């Protein structure tokens, strides 16, 4: 995909260190130490790695407006994103990242918080601790790892909580030695919220134990693949009459995004159907117009490919 540098935050690796147990911890700052866009606890960013886009939770204190910290677990048989972070990045390098987004937002409306983390899933939990402690909440952390060496974020947790509020489980892969979720969550008061991030088995156990709880008291973030954009609609293919190319447009992409992903550069500006920069003639296809500027006559032969789609299987554009 043609990546335009200014369509991302361009940050510098100001510190890169091996935290142990195949976890690399990066601190990212602006090159002039300008303030960064604000984020809320539980947020993540997309990082453009050489192997594609990967999501990493921000583990730093959201009150620190000048840096983002992430922790990346090396996955030797993964798709290559973590290998690039571990072996392809050094202090001083530039990294392109997205604005922070939050699908695991912290609700401060409870008195007590049980934070459950498995392995590298502890990273979003870390960003929640400062906020909860400053708000005077009662917080306990249950942090499960396979080996003691993998508990690389212990110090970050203990910086914010006394020892008796931090429970470390070293399970060596044996669930009986891990967090006994059902017992832990049984009898919790109505003023208690649970936040959990970790491997599927742990999340499933928390989901089962809280099945009868009101949903606002249970928050979970699963490890998952790239997040698609919000645009929706059935998939179709675009035929480009002038170049002869055929490009698939998946359900989650606009035509403009699909063309860009195939290195086809089309002028665009607002990307919301109002400026007309991407106005394009079409000759075949049933177009679903979503722009705000074309009249009925214009729509017979033209469309704004940043927002409009096609309800037929094929669309032919004069590109």
């Amino acid at each position, binding site marked *: 995909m043609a990546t*335009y540098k*200014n*369509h*991302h*935050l*361009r940050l510098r690796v100001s510190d890169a260190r091996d935290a142990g147990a195949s976890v690399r911890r990066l601190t990212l700052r*602006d090159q*002039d130490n*300008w*303030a*960064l*866009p*604000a984020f809320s606890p539980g947020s993540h960013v997309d990082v453009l790695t050489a192997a594609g886009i990967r999501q990493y939770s921000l583990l730093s204190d959201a009150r620190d407006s000048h840096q983002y910290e992430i922790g990346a677990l090396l996955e030797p048989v993964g798709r290559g994103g973590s290998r690039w972070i571990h072996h392809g990045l050094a202090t001083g390098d530039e990294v392109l990242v997205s*604005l922070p987004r939050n699908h695991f937002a912290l609700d401060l409306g409870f008195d007590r918080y049980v934070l459950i983390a498995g392995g590298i899933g502890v990273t979003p939990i870390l960003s929640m601790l400062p906020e909860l402690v400053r708000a005077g909440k009662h917080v306990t952390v249950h942090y499960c790892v396979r080996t003691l060496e993998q508990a690389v974020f212990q110090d970050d947790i203990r910086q914010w909580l006394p020892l008796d509020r931090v429970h470390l489980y070293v399970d060596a892969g044996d669930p009986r030695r891990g967090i006994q979720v059902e017992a832990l969550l049984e009898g919790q008061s109505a003023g208690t919220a649970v936040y959990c991030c970790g491997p599927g088995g742990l999340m499933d156990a928390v989901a089962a134990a809280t099945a009868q709880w009101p949903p606002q008291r249970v928050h979970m973030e699963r490890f998952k693949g790239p997040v698609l954009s919000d645009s929706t609609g059935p998939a179709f293919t675009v035929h480009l009459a002038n170049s002869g190319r055929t490009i698939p447009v998946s359900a989650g992409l606009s035509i403009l995004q699909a063309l860009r992903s195939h290195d086809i550069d089309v*002028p665009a*500006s*607002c*990307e*919301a159907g*109002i*400026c007309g*920069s991407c106005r394009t003639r079409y000759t075949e296809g049933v177009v679903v117009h979503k722009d*705000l500027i074309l009249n009925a006559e214009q729509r017979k032969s033209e469309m704004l490919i940043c927002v409009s789609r096609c309800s037929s299987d094929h669309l032919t554009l004069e590109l």
Partner: protein
Amino acid sequence: MTTICFSGRVEYLHTAPRSFLPMRSCETLRLIEGVGVEGDRYATENGFYSNLPHPGRQVTLFEMETLEAIERDYKIAFAPHEHRRNITTRGVALNHLVGVHFLIGKVLLIGHQLSVPCRHIEQVTGKEVFNGMVHRSGLLARILSSGHVHVGDEIKLV
């Protein structure tokens, strides 16, 4: 012929060196003839839209009155650092200044084109302000003489 008459001034000045970074408030900006705002992302090809060169996007202006209208009409508090234009004005109907020469302090400008809203603003601010900015999204202007502009400077026709 309609006569344009107003009494306006600069309320806020903002700049940012790269796309997405928060706009920083300042008391003074240096405008460079034919280029842009010193240190600003669009003077150094570091803006979100710098891949779309635009002769009229040397300096950008936005009305304080629009921020107040968006709060009144849409109940969205939209601050001067959030619209991402360089100069926030009061008392100037910016939509009337396309093709018009005007002074900010001692710096000569010409209105080039009306700005249009973009989803980028919503992405950066997390606020649904796109609709509120339609037809009142500010002005793109060219800089015809270099110089400093200051908060409080008078804005007047030549």
